[in-house]
């Protein structure tokens, strides 16, 4: 399934899988769930930089700039 979603399944196997999917509502459902899971995972939100991290990074940067 992942090879199929990744577009890396050889053509013959892709056709066989697609023929099976046309006949099998359960595997079709499973594939749709995989796609939904990928979309959901992609919407996990990034966390913000903490103030402390921001300050540390500013210092890292200034040291680099002054040494240039």
């Amino acid at each position, binding site marked *: 399934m992942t090879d199929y979603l990744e577009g890396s399944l050889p053509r013959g196997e892709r056709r066989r899988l697609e023929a099976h999917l046309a006949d099998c509502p359960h595997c079709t*459902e*499973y594939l749709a769930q995989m796609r939904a*899971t990928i979309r959901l995972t992609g919407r996990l939100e990034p966390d913000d*930089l903490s103030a402390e991290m921001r300050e540390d990074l500013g210092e890292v940067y200034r040291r*680099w*700039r002054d040494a240039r």
Partner: protein
Amino acid sequence: MAFRRSDPAATADAELVASLRAGDETAFVALAGRHQASMLRLASTFVPSTAIAEEVVQDTWVAVLRGIDGFDGRASFKTWLLAILVNRAKSTGISEARSTATGDAGPAVDRSRFDPGGAWASPPRHWIEESEDRLLARGLRTRLESALRRLPSRQRAVVILRDVDGLTSEEVCRVLELSAVNQRVLLHRARGHLRAAVEEFVEA
């Protein structure tokens, strides 16, 4: 600098890189902010604690500044950055104990869901039309985050880079130094675990 057309994130990165080279501290902090979550998540797949992961992230920025003049924009900034991060993380020498080549050996779908003939004994119930917004609002986010944390480290690294950060499979292979086949095996297992976590949540 050459950056990939029609990728607004890569374009924004390239502009920030140009500003930081010109001495703009806010550009540097903005760039760090854009990648902070990705970097921490990826670093956490290599080291045992958040504190160490944060150190790895900081080390990475020092290395990035040291090497920024050598960055030629052939790879996207993000790919270049994450490859440095992986190097820094590995050089801490305290990498999590690695399991075998591809992590756990479990199948992507529990075998008990198939009958002896290989047909679905317990087919997946239809849940995807429940709106994704509602699913996320009802705490699925927490569930997914914790399922992600429980994945073996290499699966976690691959699925974070592909599905959370949106890197291409080629970029993932470059960052993690994986073969294309290994990348797909790890991705397959990881996505299987995450799908099962969503299913468990929806059906609970």
